């Protein structure tokens, strides 16, 4: 049966069996696209699952009457879902941990090969020993000195603070708020990082992406922090007004 006929039939009947038939026909696209994103810290099976869910959603949303081929429609849909998944999960959790773990294994494997052969190992040898790609080895080697921003600092004075809390910021950056007592009072309740974000986003009017770049964090982090800061200011200002 032609695609357009299948989609028309599904739209009219909402028969899950018809939907499944379409999904099965295009599962290969989910598999191909999931494979393209392997090697970024998320397992293939997880990516494939995300891609399959996006495929099902895509079948629900596709309108064959617009004349677009389903494969052309579904590719950006699945790609978008996979990228959202990475944004939500991998950047903050899996990748740094994976890289950190790989670095530990790298050191161990490197020492083993050196003691066995008397020669320092090549990237290829390390990749074979650790069953990862050469690219991952190179990346892990480049990631020297990477620490989590959530890690607690070791400095005595900053006990209990993480690296986000003590990121440097420009103290003079909030001059424009000086005459606004209420806001200033609320802003005083923010920590250094929050003030930096506030300054970049609302005084310098930088985009979230640029703010993230300057601070060396993800855009998602800036977005979340921004919401948190505005909520904090809103609460404080409401409290001040009530007083």
């Amino acid at each position, binding site marked *: 049966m032609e695609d357009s006929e299948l989609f028309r039939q599904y739209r009219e009947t909402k028969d899950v069996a018809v939907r499944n038939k379409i999904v099965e026909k295009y599962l290969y*696209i989910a598999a*191909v*696209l999931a494979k*393209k*994103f392997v090697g*970024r810290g998320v397992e293939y099976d997880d990516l494939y699952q995300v891609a399959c869910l996006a495929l099902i959603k895509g079948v629900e949303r596709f309108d064959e009457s617009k004349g677009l*081929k389903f*494969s*052309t429609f579904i*590719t*950006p849909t699945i*790609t*978008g879902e996979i*990228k959202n998944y*990475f*944004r939500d999960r991998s*950047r903050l959790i899996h*990748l740094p941990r994976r890289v950190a773990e790989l670095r530990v294994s790298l050191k161990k494997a490197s020492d083993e090969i050196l003691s066995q052969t008397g020669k320092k190992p090549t990237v290829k040898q390390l990749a074979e020993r650790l069953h990862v*790609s*050469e*690219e991952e080895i*190179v*990346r892990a080697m*480049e990631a020297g000195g990477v620490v989590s921003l959530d890690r607690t600092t070791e400095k005595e004075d900053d006990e209990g603070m993480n690296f986000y809390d003590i990121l440097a910021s420009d103290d003079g950056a909030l001059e424009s708020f000086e005459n606004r007592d209420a806001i200033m009072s609320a802003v005083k309740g923010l920590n250094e990082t929050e003030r930096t974000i506030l300054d970049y986003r609302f005084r310098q009017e930088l985009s979230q992406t640029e703010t*993230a*770049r300057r601070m060396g964090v*993800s855009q998602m982090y800036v977005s979340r922090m921004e919401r948190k800061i505005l909520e904090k200011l809103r609460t404080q200002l409401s409290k001040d007004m009530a007083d």
Partner: protein
Amino acid sequence: MEEIMSVTFPLESGLLTTVRLTTGGVCSLAGLDLDDSEDCKLCVTESLLVLLRNGFSRARLAFSLQGGLSVQICGESAGAPSAEEGQDELSLALLGALVKDLVMEREGDVVCKIAFRFGA
């Protein structure tokens, strides 16, 4: 436009890892974030596969800095396109989904040059 580097190489699958590593290094020099770097690498390899399927046996890959990182991939040593139906469609849809300003040049039906930009 400031060309950072260009490289010409045979379109062989064994070289794709080297190309990806090179691309990753250039992305890092250009200050691209992790997501953009990964997408850029994917787009470079996908473009090379498109050129391969369109009959080219060599490719020239050039990186330039112009409002971000500009990438140009041109096919060289043209031959007969392969008959893998639908593969290009998927690759091109993927490229279209990952880059905003994809430029593709064709000679007749054959895709001979792909260009895109990341960052800024």
